[in-house]
């Protein structure tokens, strides 16, 4: 057995995970031809154990394997050469453990800043560089963008991140809490806290109430729709379609204020706790939610239709910032970025959750441009509203169930993969425990980790003035990437 095959949110014993020698593991990874979602090290005394998790999105299965690097083994043949999607995983592993992937195409720092790092440079009389960040013009998180331009045209963009690094994975081991999980990536409070809570519950072999599961997913879909509406506004703002920016901004407020009525926080902080939820949704609140969503749905539909009909809008969005399906596949894009390029990846449906089973998941016509990413948001807003109403109607059946159940302490020597589909895409948390049942490694992968490179590809051969628009259309996370 070269792989341990498991499922989302299922606890396995670490001892069951195969250990291969690295060349074998490398061959296996290439052979099974699945999608990488985890590639990370764990210090085991003098050795480093490398864990690999591959996803089979069609069967809904997860494949785990591992390899051990002894103290003196400091290099291996990079997998990126064969599967480009590994590029960022290998960079991260190298930075954390100093084990070098040989023949990696561009082994630059991930989060640790070295002043001597030399950006990719183009030469030529007419070539100029534009450096942006870490502090940007707007109220946003920091990151550095280095453009190689010819006149107005972008030839190459190199993105350097890591400014937000707060050592989250270490903190998850020394002082794990729902509050910390909520603060890893504050625009995905629900998705992150859900991924964390699911992992902790799986480690304690605990099943939470149907009621709590429903309330959590209602919140997850509200988060998704609220951010998507806000993003439609941001895209409108970037092309100076100010009415769109204003209306979507105000419409988003209605959704997040409803979230406040549920949980006391506009972003749903404090709602989810390990073992269930802290707030109930009663019949009255449920009716209120439905009526707000109906109003929001009308406003969004009317505004987006008016907006997209305008030729000044479509001329800015169409064929801008294109990522082809082929590029998306080879780079291993996930979530919205993948879907907008025609790859139907969505862990809500790929790793079946009973509550999503009867939801229809139609795909949109996707061209990989800003227009597709805009349309996709509109589609997902409608879909989320549909799901929320469906879940709300089921809630009444479980009226008598508790909001919370007791979660027993984590089982020792365990390994859990917890995937949640946040609004950007899959949020992957992988939790390992030691022989005492304490967390010994906590690995987090934000969808942005895969997708930042897509932005770099998207802007090639576009005008530099379209960069903000392209950037907004992806709206990737800095802190989710930097951790």
């Amino acid at each position, binding site marked *: 057995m070269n792989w341990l095959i498991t499922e989302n949110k299922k606890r396995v014993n670490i001892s069951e995970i195969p250990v291969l020698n690295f060349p074998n593991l490398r061959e296996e990874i290439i052979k099974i031809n699945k999608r990488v979602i985890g590639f990370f090290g764990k210090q085991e005394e003098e050795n480093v154990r490398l864990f690999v998790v591959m996803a089979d999105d069609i069967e809904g299965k997860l494949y785990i394997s591992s390899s051990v690097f002894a103290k003196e083994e400091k290099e291996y043949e990079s997998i990126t050469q064969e599967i480009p999607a590994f590029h960022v995983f290998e960079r991260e592993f190298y930075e954390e453990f100093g084990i070098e992937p040989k023949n990696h195409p561009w082994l630059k720092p991930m*989060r640790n*800043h070295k002043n001597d790092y030399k950006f990719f440079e183009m030469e030529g009389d007419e070539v100029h560089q534009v450096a942006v960040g*870490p*502090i940007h*013009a*707007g*109220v*946003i*998180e*920091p990151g550095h963008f280095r453009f190689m331009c010819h006149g107005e045209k972008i030839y190459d963009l190199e993105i350097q991140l*890591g*400014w*937000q*690094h*707060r*050592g*989250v994975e*270490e*903190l998850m081991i*020394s*002082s794990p*809490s*729902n*509050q*910390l999980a909520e*603060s*890893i*990536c*504050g*625009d995905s*409070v629900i998705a992150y806290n859900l991924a964390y809570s699911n992992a902790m519950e799986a480690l304690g072999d605990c099943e939470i109430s149907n009621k709590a599961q429903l309330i959590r997913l209602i919140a997850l879909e509200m988060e998704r729709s609220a951010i998507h509406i*806000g993003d439609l506004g941001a895209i409108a703002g970037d092309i100076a379609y100010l*009415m769109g920016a*204003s*209306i979507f*901004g*105000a419409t988003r*407020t209605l959704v997040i*204020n409803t979230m*406040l*009525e*549920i*949980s*006391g*926080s*506009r*972003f749903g*902080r*404090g709602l989810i706790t390990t073992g269930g939820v*802290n707030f109930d949704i009663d019949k009255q609140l449920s009716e209120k939610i439905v009526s707000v969503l109906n109003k929001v749905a009308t*406003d969004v539909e*009317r*505004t987006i239709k*008016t907006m997209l*009909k*305008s030729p000044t809008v479509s001329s800015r969005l169409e064929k801008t910032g294109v990522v082809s399906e082929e590029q998306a596949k080879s780079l291993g894009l996930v979530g919205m970025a993948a879907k907008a390029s025609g790859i139907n990846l969505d862990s809500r449906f790929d790793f079946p959750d009973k509550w999503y089973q009867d939801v229809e998941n139609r795909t949109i016509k996707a061209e990989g441009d800003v227009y597709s990413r805009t349309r996709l948001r509109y589609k997902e807003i409608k879909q989320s509203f549909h799901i929320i109403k469906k879940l709300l109607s089921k809630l009444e059946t479980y009226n008598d169930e508790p909001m919370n159940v007791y979660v027993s302490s984590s089982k020792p020597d365990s390994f859990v993969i917890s995937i949640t589909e946040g609004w950007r895409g899959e949020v992957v948390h992988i939790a390992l425990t030691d022989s005492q049942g304490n967390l010994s490694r906590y690995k987090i992968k934000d969808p942005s980790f895969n997708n930042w490179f897509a932005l770099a590809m998207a802007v090639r051969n576009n005008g530099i003035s379209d960069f903000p628009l392209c950037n907004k259309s992806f709206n990737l*996370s*800095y*802190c989710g990437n*930097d951790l």
Partner: protein
Amino acid sequence: MLETLKLRIYQGQQFIKDIPNAQMREQFRGFPTIVDAQVDVGICPTGAISNNPLSIDMGKCTFCGACARKCSSIKFSNYYKLASTDRNKLIITPNMTGEEYNKVAFEVRKEIKKVFGKSLKLRQVSAGGCNGCEMELNACSNVNFDMGRFGIDFVASPRHADGIVITGPISENMAHALEDCYKSTPAPKIVVLCGACAISGGVFQNSTKLNRAFLEKYPIDLYIPGCPVHPLTFINAILDFISA
């Protein structure tokens, strides 16, 4: 075009008319009201609670509500004017109401009103902020809150700014850029700490990847608690500050 106009008319006016007296939904967790008791301080993830007398440090508090669920002597009111010019005043002791707190929270500085009273341009620096505070600061300028009507705006360049607003626990990697930004801002200038992370490190306070030396080196003018800071908390904090 006609569609566009119709849509505009249908949307009507959305701004909150009276920001200092705006109604807040009752569920909002704002100013904590405390009756003295002994509480297990371990329930707080950020160490915001102390005993004898029971107190909550709003500079550390994430307003998660966990303590109030465990202990009936702590309640969170929906009072949202949480800011102070004095770090120590953020520590809330028993039997104080939000209104009483707000009355004493701002130190009067005549020069602030004189220089910034009519216009205050701010440069925001996210230094490890999770994008929660950042999203709320952006919301301050949307059509509902419309902070610009008071002459308060976020600007792109520190050279155009009268002060900086820091969010996040100040990651090591951002420490240098933050200081650069501060130095690029012309005097007289103010520094505002926005959110539990900026004020105390919040849930990240024990991280080894922070560098908070900036806060020792330069004077801090205003502390605005929250996780994230609600737009009404932010705008009122600034209004109270420039009119105190």
